């Protein structure tokens, strides 16, 4: 199950696509749920799912970063500039993910309440670290989410460019080892 240097391994591929589905799903859910009316059936459920999936994705992402740092990586293609930009974009995506998990956590735990994950376990809260924490963290969470979705779109377009224009293996090797 180890990643080979020629391509990505199944672990990386699975985590990548799970994360992709989760990120797009969380964005859509989050965007939709903030405008729910009080009497909507989803008023309590949607945020519960959003938070639960978000925390689980945070755990998966931490594992992913560890996995990424300890395995050999397939060689990047493209010009040196492209490779640098790609490195930068990926770093920013990971950074945005971490900041999104953190800001989301800080909204819900601003009063010391924990976050219940699918009625499975409760992640404890640390309470208020800064004044108006829930408002500031909320604004940060919203804007970072837009930036992340923008970058994810760019990331997808770049993959398609590799596949259809450069006709290289960049997309293929994220689909099968």
């Amino acid at each position, binding site marked *: 199950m180890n990643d080979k240097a020629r391509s990505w391994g199944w672990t990386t591929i699975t985590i990548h696509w799970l994360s992709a589905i989760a990120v797009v799903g969380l964005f859509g859910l989050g965007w939709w749920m903030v405008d729910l*009316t009080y*009497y909507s059936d989803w008023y309590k459920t949607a945020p519960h799912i959003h938070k639960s999936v978000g925390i689980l994705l945070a755990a998966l992402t931490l594992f992913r970063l560890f996995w990424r740092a300890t395995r050999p990586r397939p060689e990047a293609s493209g010009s040196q500039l492209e490779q640098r930009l790609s490195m930068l974009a990926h770093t920013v995506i990971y950074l945005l993910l971490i900041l999104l998990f953190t800001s989301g956590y800080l*909204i*819900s735990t*601003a009063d010391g*309440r924990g976050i219940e994950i699918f009625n499975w376990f409760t992640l404890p809260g640390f309470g208020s670290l800064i004044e108006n*924490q*829930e*408002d500031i963290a909320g604004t940060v969470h919203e804007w970072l989410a837009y930036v992340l979705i923008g970058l994810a779109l760019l990331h997808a377009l770049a993959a398609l460019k590799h596949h259809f224009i450069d006709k290289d293996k960049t997309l293929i090797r994220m689909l099968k080892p």
Partner: protein
Amino acid sequence: MKKLSLSLITLAAMSAPTFAADYIIDSKGAHAAINFKIQHLGYSWLTGRFNTFDGNFSYDADNPQASSITVNIDPASIDSNHAERDKHLRNEDFLHVTKFDKARFVSTKVTDVEEDGDFHLHGDLTLHGVTKPVVIDVEKIGEGEDPWGGYRVGFAGETKIALKDYGIDYDLGPASTHVLLELHIEGVRQ
């Protein structure tokens, strides 16, 4: 002798010509509170408060009609003991505090003064950018010297406002269209 002079001072104070004294609301010592409650689904009361406010008033027990008060409230200081709810109450659905960052009550007149010192306080309440007249049922709680050389007077007040009167139209259900404001004010004489 000491006892006599003390009672003389008391007598002098009591018979002094009456004039409205100025008081500062003791928000610093938190002997004042702006609390609210609203029905939750019609099944219970949800309570909360505004933590940050200040104000002053003038009051004379012998002439309550001449009383007046101004209270400035920071709507962003709303606290219902639940950060996620407070965040919602501060946003565009409710108080929209980034746009309407000041709430205030300025009295206009006093009516219906009763024997026990209770009265109706009329005034203009500004909230969510809307100013509307309200009448607060005021109960006088007491007044006198405090143990630290000051003089205090305190009241409790209650009034009810309709959310939609103040341009807040988020639907919380038919039982939750009005908010009860419960005010507790203690002033320290200047």
